[in-house]
């Protein structure tokens, strides 16, 4: 039973780390600000979720586990709100997204 928990937490921790890196690379390579918002979403939902789940499996006592679940739920609520506020503020200040009918390669970076 203990081995199963270890193997499962190994897989979820490395999976969470992998998706964190995918999000980090996504934020670097995606052409436009609005598409980078998606990359930041990948990190917070999947990367954080898998890592915290891996930690949850290793949690011995109940209060450690409940704290991990609380962190995950809190991240689940606040990060989409922050990303939404970010996108609204960017759009509000006249920063147009790169639509594909602009023709040609994206202008910035």
């Amino acid at each position, binding site marked *: 039973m203990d081995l199963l928990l270890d193997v499962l937490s190994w897989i979820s921790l490395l999976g969470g*780390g992998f998706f*964190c890196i995918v999000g980090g*690379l996504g934020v*670097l390579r995606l052409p436009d600000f609005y598409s*980078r918002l998606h990359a930041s979403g990948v990190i917070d939902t999947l990367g954080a979720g898998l890592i*915290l789940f891996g930690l949850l499996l*290793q949690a011995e006592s109940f209060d*450690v586990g409940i704290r991990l679940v609380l962190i995950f739920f809190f991240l689940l609520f606040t990060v989409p709100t922050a990303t939404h506020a970010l996108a609204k503020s960017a759009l509000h200040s006249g920063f147009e997204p790169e639509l594909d009918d602009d023709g040609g390669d994206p202008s910035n970076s």
Partner: protein
Amino acid sequence: MFVAALFTILLTMALTLVRALRGPTVFDRILAVNMFGTSTVLGIAVIGFVTDRPDFLDIALVYALISFITTIATLKYFEYGSFGCGRREENG
């Protein structure tokens, strides 16, 4: 096992910092700071498990709160030029 996860989180922080330095617009920088905060939350949680001290998770929770408030405050300041006391006319 935890050290491997910690290493991936540190790598994500490095990638986020590169975006923060290179970001053409200020919104990219705010986004990078937001992602750096979330990675710090995960890093503190994993460090808490590496050093086998469960009270680190409280620090991680508080840091998640602060990171969220930082993003919202920066946006509020940047969009309204001040902390929202004098709202500009055109947005009603």
